[in-house]
């Protein structure tokens, strides 16, 4: 019992030692401070600003009107009234429209055929031809969806008028026209805005990037100067690495306890991105996320020789983690190997859980599976970090002892 108490006291001292040493290392390293604050805020704000218009409006589309009837002009003005398209109908032939498409003045072409109005009156089917550029999916969807919705309404108008001409009431006419109606509602992100979609994901991703960078820089410079033993003498003890690791995780969690509410509170409010969760739940959810990322960072950073090496994390890990999280492209499209690989990255459950909490109004029980997943990852990376730390301290010791 007494030896246990002694061990506890020892662990406690080394825990607080770690916290203060690490804090000093952060405080006096300009690079780390700038990583934590400039990257966490500047990058988030720049990205949010890029996407702040949320959706695109008034995509220019060329209209080649070969008919020039009243019906065709009605159709064009309906198209123009739709939110996404701005119709430019000054083209007399397709060649002219194509030239402007090459010059990127228009993003699509709509051709209204000859005898459009006449055919409609005679009860013959007529066909509108559209060309939409799918090299950018956002333009493509906008053009295609708006043209098909307009055509749908235009059709319904003609048919229902015809029915009513036969003496049917408008209700019966509409019922005859479409027996099954579809009511579509978006549960969250009702306008399908791009910023609302991507910023919560980025917020969670940036946590991982910034932490990995910061830890990499600190550990890299310790390695450059062979300072590990001097900074953390307790690592030599049996089980001495455990309080060191816990102390680091505790400190970084505290730092993010300040950064996270600032990020969400300032950026989300300025760009009016919804926050549908309480801070306490976000904190509770972040604990295993931060822990697992810190341990992962310690484990990986032992591969770096120089402090600069860790900065490349910022760029090299960001896009793959974003893709693998399954939030931008559904995981169903990935092979089994990548689905399993994704589970090893803390940001996968971290981003999913964060999006669920802040955007999808999930209760804590609904993010419980991600939470448990993160604890498991934290545990795994804790062991790996423990092993790499031990390994590094012994190799550093050897290097210091060997006469140069």
């Amino acid at each position, binding site marked *: 019992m007494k030896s246990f108490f002694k061990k506890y006291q020892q662990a406690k001292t080394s825990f607080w030692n770690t916290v203060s040493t690490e804090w000093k290392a952060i405080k006096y390293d300009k690079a780390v401070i*700038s990583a934590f604050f400039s990257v966490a805020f500047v990058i988030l704000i*720049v990205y949010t*600003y890029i*996407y*702040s218009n949320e959706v695109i*409006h008034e*995509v220019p589309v060329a209209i080649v009107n070969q008919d020039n009837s009243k019906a065709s002009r009605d*159709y064009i003005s309906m198209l123009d009234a739709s939110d996404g398209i701005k119709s430019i109908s000054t083209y007399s032939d397709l060649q002219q429209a194509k030239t402007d498409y*090459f010059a990127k003045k228009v993003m699509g072409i709509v051709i209204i055929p000859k005898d459009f109005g006449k055919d*409609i009156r005679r*009860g*013959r*089917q*007529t*066909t*509108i031809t*559209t060309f*939409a550029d*799918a090299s*950018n*999916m*956002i333009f493509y969807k906008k053009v*295609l969806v708006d043209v098909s919705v307009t*055509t749908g309404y235009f059709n319904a108008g003609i*048919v229902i008028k*015809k029915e009513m001409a036969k003496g049917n009431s408008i209700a019966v006419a509409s019922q*005859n*026209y479409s*027996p*099954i*109606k*579809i*009511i*579509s509602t*978006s*549960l969250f*992100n009702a306008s*399908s805005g*791009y910023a609302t*979609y991507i910023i*919560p994901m980025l917020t969670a991703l940036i946590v991982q990037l910034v932490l990995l960078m910061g830890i990499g820089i600190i550990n890299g*410079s310790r390695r450059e100067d062979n300072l590990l033993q001097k900074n953390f003498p307790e690592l030599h003890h049996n089980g001495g690495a455990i309080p060191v690791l816990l102390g680091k995780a505790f400190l970084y969690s505290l730092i993010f306890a300040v950064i996270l509410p600032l990020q969400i509170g300032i950026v989300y409010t300025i760009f009016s991105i919804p926050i549908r969760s309480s801070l306490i739940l976000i904190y509770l959810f972040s604990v295993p996320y931060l822990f697992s990322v810190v341990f992962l960072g310690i484990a990986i950073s032992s591969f770096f020789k120089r*402090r*600069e*090496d860790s*900065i*490349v994390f*910022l*760029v090299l890990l*960001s896009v793959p983690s974003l*893709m693998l999280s399954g939030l931008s*492209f*559904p995981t*169903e*499209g990935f*092979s089994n190997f990548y689905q399993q690989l994704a589970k090893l990255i803390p940001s996968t459950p971290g981003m999913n859980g964060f*999006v*669920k909490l802040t955007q999808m109004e999930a209760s804590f029980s*609904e993010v419980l*599976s991600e939470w448990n997943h993160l604890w498991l990852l934290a545990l795994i990376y804790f062991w790996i970090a423990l092993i790499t730390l031990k390994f590094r301290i012994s190799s550093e010791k050897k290097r210091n002892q060997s006469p140069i």
Partner: protein
Amino acid sequence: MKSFLLIAKREIRLLFHNKSIFIFSVVLPFISILFFNTLLSEGVARNLPIAVVDLDNSSVSRNVISQLNATPELEVSNQPISQLEGENLIQQLKVYGLVTIPKNFGSDLNQGKQVYVLNQYNSSLLLPSGLEIKAVNRVIGELSAGLNIKKQLKNGVYIKQAKVNLQPVTSNNHILSNPYTNYSYYLNSGFLTLFFQIFVILTTIYCFGTDLKYKKGEKLYNIGNGNLLTIILGKTLPYTLWFYFVGLVMYFSMFVFQDFPLFGSKWAVLVALLLLIISTQAVAIFFISISKSFRESLTYGSGFAAISLSFSGITFPIFGMPKVLQWLSQIFPFTHFFELFLDQTQRGFPLFYSIKPIIILVLLTIIPVLLVAKKLRNLLKQGSFLQRI
């Protein structure tokens, strides 16, 4: 010429001695090419799970479910008993959408009443929700049209006329550039070339940065006889050639292995690759010269390279950005490269329309180097960065 060769030889020697440069220029580019080519090999998302609440349980409603299941995009994975349960499934991200078929759906339909189907989707995930709406709309639209035509046939209308009565105007949609709306063509064009650019910028910063970090700038300056152009070419040209080869492998993976559309001029695509490499190297030199330390130049360089994806307009069109950012996007070489690349591969535009991005890329190569030439000379004379960290 002699000093140029000396520097170039020294650079190649360094490449095999410096582990970081070796990893960035030789190992990681190929890993990234492998990663992106295999990650999205499907290209099109299939069988997205959705939930259907069937409150009717008639043969008609079961038909709706099997029709939904038959679409390539969707798969009915859950049939919760209540809407609340279904909404919870959406919140748990287990399904991408929830379709509710109301009570008396079948019998109302048989009586000729208008019925509705409720589709709830989750736009927190843009891509799958877009596919879900499209697929559900199509299924329900087709069912509804089928019923409309059946009704008309019963009234003695010919099938041809019935179709016209349903749809006086049809639309014939042509998809240009990416005929299968394959997401691999769309995203990988951006990701592969972006990562390629990242490796070029990192390698260039590293090859100058390691010299300057370890105070070898002066030595370099002396070998080059103080001729800045010789030094820059000597240091960068070996990498230009090497990355041109890596870029060809990347092109091979895109256009041969993955069969990306290549409708334009092949020569222009090859020129684009060269311009991307040299303009990126110019940007790297710019960042080295204005930084106080190696670390700072790396931060600028990697940040610049990473954010150029967003500024290229692939994720969100430049057209939709705030005006200031639209102007800002023009200083990123990647934006112009990507425009040139898409115009000459997927869009297949006439070469004439690609002259503008080519000229801009050439300018973006020359201007950054000219801007910092004096600073770089001083930095090399000085031998090292101002700060170590």
